[in-house]
């Protein structure tokens, strides 16, 4: 079981999709990067809050999950490209037969999981069809 800080420190990113933007090359990053892989030492990073609208790049429906996610099966997992460009991995809440490549999605705030039976409940962003 993990301690609270492991989850707490990521609240801005997981609740509000705060990533980073490099002012030097105008590239957006989510999850946030401290070092811009394009500019490296020339990078000038600032926080950026993403709107969360995006489209499905690829997806799967998971039938066999790790113990922590067993209760949620089957669930859709997708790589989503945000409007600003970066891609992230997240769940898409809809019937497995409804998800498709190119589908537009928007973010929703949801319970993501539980750290065992007595650990903390953690929250974050999932996606639904837009």
């Amino acid at each position: 079981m993990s301690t609270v800080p492991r989850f707490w420190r990521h609240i801005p990113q997981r609740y509000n999709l705060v990533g980073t933007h490099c002012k030097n090359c105008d590239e957006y990053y989510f999850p946030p990067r401290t070092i811009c892989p394009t500019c490296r030492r020339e990078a000038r990073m600032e926080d950026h809050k993403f709107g969360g609208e995006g489209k499905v790049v690829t997806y799967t429906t998971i039938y066999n999950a790790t113990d922590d996610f067993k209760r949620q099966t089957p669930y859709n997992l997708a790589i989503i490209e945000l409007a600003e460009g970066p891609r992230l991995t997240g769940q898409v809440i809809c019937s497995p037969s409804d998800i498709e490549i190119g589908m537009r999605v928007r973010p929703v705030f949801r319970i993501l999981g539980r750290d065992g039976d007595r650990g903390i409940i953690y929250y974050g962003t999932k996606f639904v069809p837009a």
Partner: protein
Amino acid sequence: MRSVSIIGAGCTKFGERWDDSLRDLVVETGIMALEDANVSGEEIDGLYVGNMSGGQFVSQEHIGALISDCAGLSRLHVPSTRVEAACASGGLALRQGVLAVASGYSDVVIAAGVEKMTDVTGGVAADALAAAADREWECFFGATFPALYAMIARLHIHRYGTTREQLAAVAVKNHQNGCNNPISQYQMEITIDDVLRSPLVADPLRVLDCSPITDGAAAVVLAPTEMARKFSDGPIRILAAAQASDTLALHDRRDITTLDATVSASRKAFDMSGIEVKDVDLAEVHDAFTIGEIVAIEDLGFVEKGEGGRAVIEGVTAIGGDIPVNTSGGLKACGHPVGATGIKQAYEMVLQLRGEAGKRQVEGAEVGLTHNVGGCGGTAIVHIMSR
């Protein structure tokens, strides 16, 4: 830099080895490799062992010292190093061993790999394997390892018209090969229908698209080529040992259907060895999932991008085809004890290049390539070897 050769190799039977611990497996394979190389303990200058997750699978870290101790080398105080790159840990151990010998720092080095995976339940094993992916930004949201490869497969199908049957054909071929390999975990043939009817794991991947949970260990003994004949009648020369990295998370890749780490490592390996793709007689590639083999043969340059599925179903990669792939049965049928896999690939190549692979022998095999992937492409390691 000195030329390096494999002077001996050993590999345990792969499978659910309930009677044997991680230690037992290491000792079993170590004895085989050392006997094959005709090397004594006093001659060993160093030991590298690939192990992905002793910590999660058997609650044991400090695997380097453990292995040297179990191998009876503790009184000789042989330096022993555990290396980790998820499922590429074995390939990494081999490359580290090669670097140690090539540099002149060591003469005789053992490169081994081991994983004991069946001491935990399936869910715990799945979680340990998921640690090869990005824990905070993939697994945290429910990603599993098969799910990541399923997303590669989905896009490959969408973009290149790869079919479900073509994916299944990888498993069918590798099971056929596994039937002729005595160490293989599975010794039974399967049909395309069997694969398509097996339960879904992460759509479109099914149980028979996935490599199994396996216990096993493998070891090779390395020496400078100039000394190799002293130990072995059939040393195998390592012409290139290349390694590359890429983003940890799949979503950050330049192209989700290409493992750029494989492309980079194979280019370096071909440059280093002076070998061209067409000169390679056979390959062991990382088929942790059927889509993995299709993407691998494309990224290594054996077929054009997008043509991997067709090549497999047309028999291009079968024994007797243009480029036989995974004669051992691959990770799919031979089994995938993650830390041992990269060394098992080298073991298979040693047998093939010596002409000792029995019923699965590729006639006239002179140059072989091994390809080991960590995670879903965060690390790739390519070795080219010849007799």
